[in-house]
């Protein structure tokens, strides 16, 4: 045996493109993947009949589509159509080379059908069987291939991960300890969720490790642990490049089949029409009659024997290359050198037609060369103690190595809606969880709509601009269904029929796969379940509350609030944050929020006041989701604008207490700030239901400087409620 190991990982993923209506072009993606990749790979596993240590990742959308009777039956129809087309072609008297290739296709399509029917049309059974026989290992992916670094909440990331694992387990009878992160996209923090969900390893691009902190001693010659303990297996660029690159890799060889030249485009429309889309669209038949030939538009016919010869050559070359690579690093111990080669499965067969046979041949060569293949799971079992722990920053295996593909000017418009759906789900689960079985099923269906919308495929397709319209439509449709169902939930218009209708549109995932509690936050649970109902509350805005009270105002507010609380009122006090005092405290019926500014350092008084008012409004926005305010009471000019805009938005009465005015504090004042404060003070006099002024001020005096109406009154004694309602008698002795 040579030193070191080789680990091959194949990731099979397609977006969920199952449509009830016939003739959706995108459904053909599934047929192509089955015909060119999935079954050919299964053929190799079946041919070799031994532990290959290949790790096959199948994403939940693929698992679900493979298990879907509608897709299965249509695939058989598709095979029959192709076989019919091949017969017609053979009857046409084509050239000798074409006839030879058509015979090859006839045999191949018959074999595809035989294999497909052998597994009772469900290829999940095939993969599961080979996995249970120990020939391959299997993992899965997150529910819909959502791009982790661009999710907003921990809940959404967890839902994607847990739902994916649940779905896979339902079909495959076991829960994998590895997962394929969509696009190999790692972001700090996703490892914690993975670990908590029972995942122990995943795959990243090589620069994730090369740029890790600290730099790993073994470079990419060994996996590392992320800070939260998930093993990250790096893709070896040099070795992988030999295989995937159409420029420097094997797939670009002139003798291999040409991907972009399909029989559909070489035949007259009248002849081929029967096999094309009813709306007159040509699409690939999968019968590709030419070889790459070279860097030319003039393509020669495909010669199967030549292609097979190249497969042998390339498999041998690959084994030799790998041997050299392993020997060069042969000195590495603890752990021994490991080459990880993760690929999109569709590269083999779909893009590189001869790929699956190449993999089969490589497996044979490696055995001859004494190169040990291993699965990541087995590698960890043997060497888990030898791995370093490092910090890995956000990265992917995509263009330029980061997020370029999934966030750019072509697809950025989706993100705010996705984030909105995430936060809505958290809120809906908090509000409606376990209200009734029907409501719980609704929450599950909302999560289903969300995961279908968050599929990274839509951003990917929009970036590539291939079937951009389809991707944009799909995103909009899932968002619309989410919006409509959420509205039905809010308006109490749910029914079994409605839910069935929503499910039928995209029957992806079983209800048991989706756990609504992934979206629950413990704090929300406390608020919605344990905190209990409060009476309608008074919202008090004041520049001072407890702490170092400077003047009359601070004392008046405290006395006022305490008096109202004694009356039995619930009071929420919003006041500026002060160092040394808690941001929140509660005394029986009084909640005190000391509100921080977005930015603590502002030079100008009016700007500080503006920032403080903005902070009050933003906090009140958050509070009204759970607290009902029946009145707003503001103190002093510094809280006027927030109080006014909140009173307007909440449509509640507005009360004001002004113990002094700018003109009384500063009788000879003038200038910009003086005028601005004067204007703001005038506005409250015009808008408040009642303005209470200090006993020392007369209304006449104020009226000389301000336009006042009959809503201005002198402060009431503390035991009289300014809100003009009967005091609630409490504990009267």
């Amino acid at each position: 045996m040579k030193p070191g190991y080789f680990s091959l990982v194949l990731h099979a993923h397609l977006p969920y493109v199952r449509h009830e209506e016939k003739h959706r072009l995108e459904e053909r993606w599934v047929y192509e993947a089955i015909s060119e990749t999935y079954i050919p790979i299964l053929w190799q596993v079946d041919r070799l009949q031994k532990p290959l240590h290949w790790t096959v990742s199948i994403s939940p959308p693929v698992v679900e589509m493979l298990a879907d009777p509608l897709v299965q039956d249509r695939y058989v129809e598709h095979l029959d159509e192709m076989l019919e087309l091949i017969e017609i072609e053979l009857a046409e008297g084509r050239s000798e080379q074409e006839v030879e290739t058509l015979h090859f296709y006839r045999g191949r399509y018959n074999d595809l059908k035989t294999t497909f029917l052998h597994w009772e049309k469900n290829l999940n059974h095939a993969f599961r069987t080979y996995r249970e026989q120990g020939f391959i290992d299997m993992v899965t992916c997150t529910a819909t291939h959502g791009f982790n670094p661009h999710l907003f909440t921990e809940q959404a990331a967890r839902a994607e991960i847990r739902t994916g694992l649940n779905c896979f387990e339902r079909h495959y009878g076991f829960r994998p300890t590895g997962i394929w992160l969509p696009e190999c996209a790692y972001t700090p923090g996703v490892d914690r969720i993975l670990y908590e969900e029972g995942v122990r390893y995943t795959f990243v691009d090589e620069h994730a490790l090369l740029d890790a902190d600290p730099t790993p001693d073994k470079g990419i010659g060994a996996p590392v642990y992320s800070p939260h303990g998930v093993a990250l297996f790096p893709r070896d660029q040099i070795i992988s490049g030999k295989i995937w690159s159409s420029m420097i890799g094997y797939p670009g060889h002139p003798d291999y089949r040409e991907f972009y030249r399909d029989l559909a485009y070489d035949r007259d429309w009248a002849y081929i029409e029967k096999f094309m889309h009813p709306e007159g669209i040509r699409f690939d038949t999968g019968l590709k009659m030419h070889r790459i030939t070279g860097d030319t538009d003039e393509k020669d016919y495909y010669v199967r024997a030549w292609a097979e010869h190249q497969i042998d050559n390339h498999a041998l070359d690959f084994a030799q290359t790998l041997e050299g690579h392993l020997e060069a690093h042969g000195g590495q111990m603890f752990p021994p050198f490991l080459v990880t080669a993760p690929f999109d499965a569709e590269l083999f067969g779909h893009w590189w037609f001869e790929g699956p046979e190449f993999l089969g041949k490589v497996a044979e060569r490696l055995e001859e060369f004494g190169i040990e293949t291993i699965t990541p799971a087995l590698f960890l079992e043997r060497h888990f103690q030898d791995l370093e722990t490092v910090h890995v920053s956000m990265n992917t295996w995509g263009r330029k190595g980061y997020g370029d593909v999934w966030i750019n000017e072509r697809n950025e418009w989706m993100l705010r809606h996705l984030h909105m759906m995430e936060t809505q789900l958290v809120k809906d689960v908090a509000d409606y969880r376990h209200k009734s079985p029907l409501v719980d099923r609704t929450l599950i269906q909302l999560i289903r709509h969300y995961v279908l919308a968050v599929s990274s495929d839509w951003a990917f397709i929009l970036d590539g601009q291939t079937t951009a319209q389809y991707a944009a439509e799909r995103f909009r449709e899932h968002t619309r269904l989410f919006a409509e169902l959420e509205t039905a939930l809010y308006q109490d218009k749910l029914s079994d029929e409605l839910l069935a209708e929503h499910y039928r549109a995209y029957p992806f995932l079983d209800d048991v796969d989706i756990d609504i509690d992934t979206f629950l936050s413990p704090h929300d649970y406390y608020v919605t379940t344990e905190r209990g109902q409060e009476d309608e509350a008074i919202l008090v805005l004041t520049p001072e509350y407890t702490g170092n009270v400077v003047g009359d105002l601070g004392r008046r507010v405290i006395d006022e609030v305490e008096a109202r609380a004694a009356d039995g009122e619930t009071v929420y006090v919003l006041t500026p944050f002060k160092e040394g005092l808690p941001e929140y405290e509660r005394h029986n019926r009084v909640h005190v929020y000391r509100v921080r500014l977005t930015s603590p350092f502002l030079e100008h008084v009016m700007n500080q006041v503006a920032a403080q008012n903005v902070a009050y409004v933003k906090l009140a926005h958050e509070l009204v989701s759970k607290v009902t305010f029946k009145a707003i009471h503001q103190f002093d000019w510094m809280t006027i604008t927030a109080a006014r805009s909140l009173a307007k938005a909440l449509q509640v009465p507005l009360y004001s207490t002004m113990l002094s005015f700018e003109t009384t504090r500063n009788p000879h004042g003038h200038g910009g700030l003086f005028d601005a404060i004067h204007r703001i003070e005038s506005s409250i006099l015009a808008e408040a239901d009642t303005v209470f002024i200090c006993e020392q001020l007369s209304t006449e005096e104020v009226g000389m400087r301000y336009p006042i109406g009959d809503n201005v009154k002198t402060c009431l004694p503390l035991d009289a409620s300014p809100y003009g309602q009967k005091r609630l008698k409490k504990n009267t002795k």
Partner: protein
Amino acid sequence: MEEKIVSLKQQGLTLKQIAEQLDMPIGKVQYAWRKWRSQHGEPAKPVAAPKRKTEGKKAMTSKSKQVPASSVKQVASTLQHEEPAQSPLLDKGPEGFWKLPDRYDQDLMHAVVQSPNAVYVFWEVSDSVKETLSMQFMRPWEDLPKAFRILDITLLDYASGHANRAYTFELPEMTNSWFVRPLDPNTTYVFEFGIRTMEGEFLPLLATSPIDTPRAEPAGHGRFAEPVRRWQYGKVEAPELLDTLPKYSAYRFVR
């Protein structure tokens, strides 16, 4: 007085008309009407603010949670201030078909990494905040110059107000997203959206959570090496690392 309001409402008058007729502040009329409704077995439904001409978005409304309950009987024929609760994602275009909402009338600002040198940021300012600022500065929101600030807070606490570097630039009116570039790799940033005040001071209204740009070259023994070691060996209660994907609570400010 309450009975009077209710009877006028049932005659089909709007709350505004009632307020004028009874010479009362509208707030009081609205309150009395809401109170009467809730006392008479009708959940106080969210009340939309008077429609502004710019958009028909629901304003912030103080609402008690609606559990699916008996459906609400309409008392008056013209409930012009009443809108049934609906998903914020439900919106209709001019042709009456569903469309993606243009905005959600919230205050939010999120950042996601595009590359070591670029971050995508999007944000939204609520009507109430816009209005508060208009009142404060006596100018319409549209006339307040918009600006954007980039703060490098690597190894600092944003809440302390300290930053290693800050850079502010003007934004065109009506922007709600920006690809911020060029940035430095391996740096912790906070992005703020705000206005420029009369004095030229930047007044931030929104800020993102801190976000790390990825490294783009080998780190050697960098700023994460020690925090990782401390966490690995259990020397700290919580990792001193900036994780994305924070747990979100819908009611995080309700205590």
